């Protein structure tokens, strides 16, 4: 199969699913007193389009007015006036990519772990604390009283190593938090689905406690932790290296996105090209087969849980270090972990799929949130997203339908190539 054919094959069904999802949610759109087509244009424009996007066509090509009154035709995704929405959706896709990778790694070891939310929170709270605590200790040791007046060399060093330390610690926290359900599954046969759900609930409560009591920094109405030190901050592109490029101006897109992309490549390589990845995939494919072949299955599963947890922990850390810079009470309801699970399932755990679906998901979320600016209820966005997910989950069914339509046409056109079975030895 040519690459083009494969791309068409891969994309046609998801596209069909999206269309069906939109068609089905029209019922609710009309019920809410809105025009379906207009609503969908609004949803996609707010999620994926440039400033001033009005129609589906504007998603690709937009006519924009220059300052001197002339109009100009631009390729929308690259158009950045007022800050590109693509940058914003990539910012929001960053943790989603990581939690989806996290889910995929666990799933591909045969563990239906959905503990990404809990691990995400553990990573987030860890760096929310270490992000100011580690710099504090360093300043103390170096005898610096005013960080502003610290020697430049020290600050440069800290800018390099403090984020690394924080990320490492967050990954460790996530990994441990994920390892426990794995371990009790193997030792005590506790269903990982149940234990990870409970671990998520524990993490939410723990987070609430930490933010409200030991780590509460001030008497702000909503409890929050102290802001992380500037040396721990992963400066977003719009405040750092790309400050002059308008495309980045509206989003806190930063090095975290590159880390997520790198993680995707590494995880792909781990799963497909290393013996350890092979071990976990075989364990998932058939536990009996793996044990029969001599694969150390217990180790493979626990390793997968550690990696999975580390990825979710990393996601939480990047949100705090690169976007929020602190944890505010209510942070726990973000649901990034659970959305990661959905992304992983919808993309069939394929890494390339995750890289495509996560931004799409982020864009839809963005569009749904912004529906309210068009005087449409925000909840409508949620319903539309749910229908799209539902129909995407029917992918196999759709594929079968489309395939049988095709094969009927093909049968009429030509005699197929036939592979005959021949069980006998020649």
């Amino acid at each position: 199969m040519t690459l083009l054919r494969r791309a068409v094959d891969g994309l046609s069904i998801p596209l069909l699913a999206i269309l069906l999802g939109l068609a089905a949610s029209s019922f609710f759109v009309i019920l809410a007193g809105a025009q379906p087509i207009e609503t969908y244009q609004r949803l996609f424009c707010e999620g994926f389009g440039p400033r001033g996007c009005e129609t589906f066509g504007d998603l690709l090509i937009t006519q924009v007015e220059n300052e001197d009154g002339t109009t100009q035709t631009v390729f929308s995704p690259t158009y950045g006036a007022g800050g590109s929405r693509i940058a914003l959706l990539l910012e929001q896709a960053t943790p989603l990519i990581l939690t989806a990778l996290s889910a995929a790694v666990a799933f591909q070891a045969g563990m239906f772990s959905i503990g990404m939310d809990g691990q995400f929170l553990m990573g987030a709270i860890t760096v929310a604390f270490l992000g100011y605590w580690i710099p504090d200790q360093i300043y103390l040791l170096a005898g610096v009283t005013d960080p502003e007046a610290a020697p430049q060399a020290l600050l440069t060093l800290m800018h390099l190593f403090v984020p690394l330390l924080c990320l490492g610690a967050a990954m460790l926290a996530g990994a441990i938090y994920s390892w426990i359900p794995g371990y009790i599954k193997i030792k005590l046969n506790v269903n990982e689905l149940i234990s990870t759900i409970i671990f998520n609930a524990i993490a939410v409560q723990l987070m609430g406690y930490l933010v409200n009591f030991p780590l509460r920094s001030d008497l702000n109405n909503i409890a929050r932790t102290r802001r992380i030190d500037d040396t721990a901050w992963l400066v977003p592109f719009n405040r750092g290296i790309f400050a002059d490029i308008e495309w980045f101006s509206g989003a806190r897109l930063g090095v975290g996105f590159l880390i997520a992309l790198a993680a995707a490549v590494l995880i792909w390589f781990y799963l497909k090209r290393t013996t350890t990845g092979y071990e976990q995939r075989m364990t998932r494919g058939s536990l009996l087969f793996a044990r029969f072949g001599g694969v150390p299955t217990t180790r493979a599963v626990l390793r997968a849980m550690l990696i999975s947890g580390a990825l979710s922990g990393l996601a939480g850390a990047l949100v705090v270090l690169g976007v929020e810079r602190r944890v505010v009470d209510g942070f726990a309801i973000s649901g990034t972990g659970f959305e990661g699970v959905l992304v992983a399932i919808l993309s069939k755990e394929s890494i390339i799929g995750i890289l495509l679906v996560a931004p799409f998901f982020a864009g839809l979320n963005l569009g749904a949130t912004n529906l309210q600016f068009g005087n449409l209820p925000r909840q409508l966005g949620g319903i539309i997203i749910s229908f799209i997910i539902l129909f995407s989950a029917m992918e196999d069914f759709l594929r079968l339908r489309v395939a049988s339509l095709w094969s009927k046409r093909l049968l009429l056109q030509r005699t197929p190539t036939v592979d005959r079975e021949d069980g006998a030895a020649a």
Partner: protein
Amino acid sequence: MTSALEMQHIRKYFPSSRVLACDDVNLEVQKGEVHAIVGENGAGKTTLMSILYGLVIPDQGQILINSVPARIAHPHDAIRLGIGMVHQHFKLVPSFTIAENIMLGIEPNRAGFIDGGAEAENVRRLAESFGLPVNPDLRIRDVSVGMQQRVEILKILQRNAQILILDEPTAVLTPQEVRELLAVVRNLAKAGRTILFITHKLAEVKAVADNVTIMRRGQNVGTHATHGISIRDTANMMVGRVVTLQVEKTPAKPGEVILNAEHLLVAGSGGIPAVFGTSLEVRTGEILGIAGVSGNGQTELVEAIVGLRPVDQGTITFLGKDITHTTVRERREMGVAHIPEDRMVMGLNLKTNLDENVVVTSYHQQPYSKRGFLRLQPIRQLAKQIVDKFSVRSARVGEEIKTLSGGNLQKIVLGRELKGNPKLIIANQPTRGLDVGSIEFVHKTLIEERDKGAGVLLVSVELDEILALSDRIAVMFAGRVLAILDATEATEEKLGLLMAGSALETAESSGEKAHI
């Protein structure tokens, strides 16, 4: 006589696997006839029957029931037309009683509540009318496989089936149960029912069927009266060439003992001991057969020897080393190969491609990986070697294996297990569900390995197979080895009695009686 069933010009092509499963097949069956359908795996028998039962929709062709064209788009249609099917894998609810299973969906009720008494009574009457006695109150999980099959047959008779499709009904039965089943089939035919009997085993065809249809590569290559065609000719037609039914082998030249299992105590899945103090020895250059009815501890014994199941007591010595508590991998690296009972779940991972399947026992070694990274080229070469050497048809390097036939899958398992010249080969039901051609190949391969000096432990519920291949025969019953006989002194009767739990002396005396 009218024809109960006619299938005309049936054609079915599976686009996903690019297989033309049925190619212009015609089949005519008379009322009251037992009609056997034989063919290798992948010959199209099952597809043809699935079409008749409404599980598969044909691309072309028509079906006539009692000379009336019938449209069968769903099993409901088939059942309405009086067609019933007993699948190879039973579809029964283990926690329900026999009566509840038979009446499932058509329960007699009183004001909406199931009338349990009437249910049992109905079933008892039904069972008696067909001479198939059952106890309607027993639960399915407590009865033997043969009894479960009987329940399946009663289930479709209760739904008034006139045409019964039996898909490889004897594959799971003991020799005694097979004999009973064949008698039941004859009786049903005598009562006017029409039976389609799908099988691999040609001796059964001879014993039970009036006519036999032979399928090869999706085509009907001939329908014959069973009394007019020999087993040999049938086999040749199935395979499309001359097959040797007899296993050719020279006397064994056994060497020293390589495997010594002593007083093994092994727990089964429920934690209850499945192997009680079993001891046995395997020598180089011999095949030790383990005969026994399925479920008498053979599988647990095999799993203990290969390291998949913990040994509670006793020792296993291999090449003079105690391996009782070593890992599967350590044993494999010492030269133990294992051809497992279930090739679909244990022998292979059908969810992945050929390459990843052939490398599962050696992926951690050079040249297949280096410092934890897989090396695709050597793995691909290994897959290619196995496909070439064992002529695994239609298996391609890097491609999925789930659509391959049972025979081809087993060849992949053999290829992987026999590479690197293992010293001990443990083969558990190596030919289960395979067709004549593949069985011949597996047997030949095992004997070749023996002649190369490997020790072979062969576990099989097929007595013919045990008798044909083994140099010594151990009989297992209820977790114990009752006797180990030399192949020359073993007879089918003697083994049959031992398999049923008689002591050797009784078996011998009655065996002698049988000879007199």
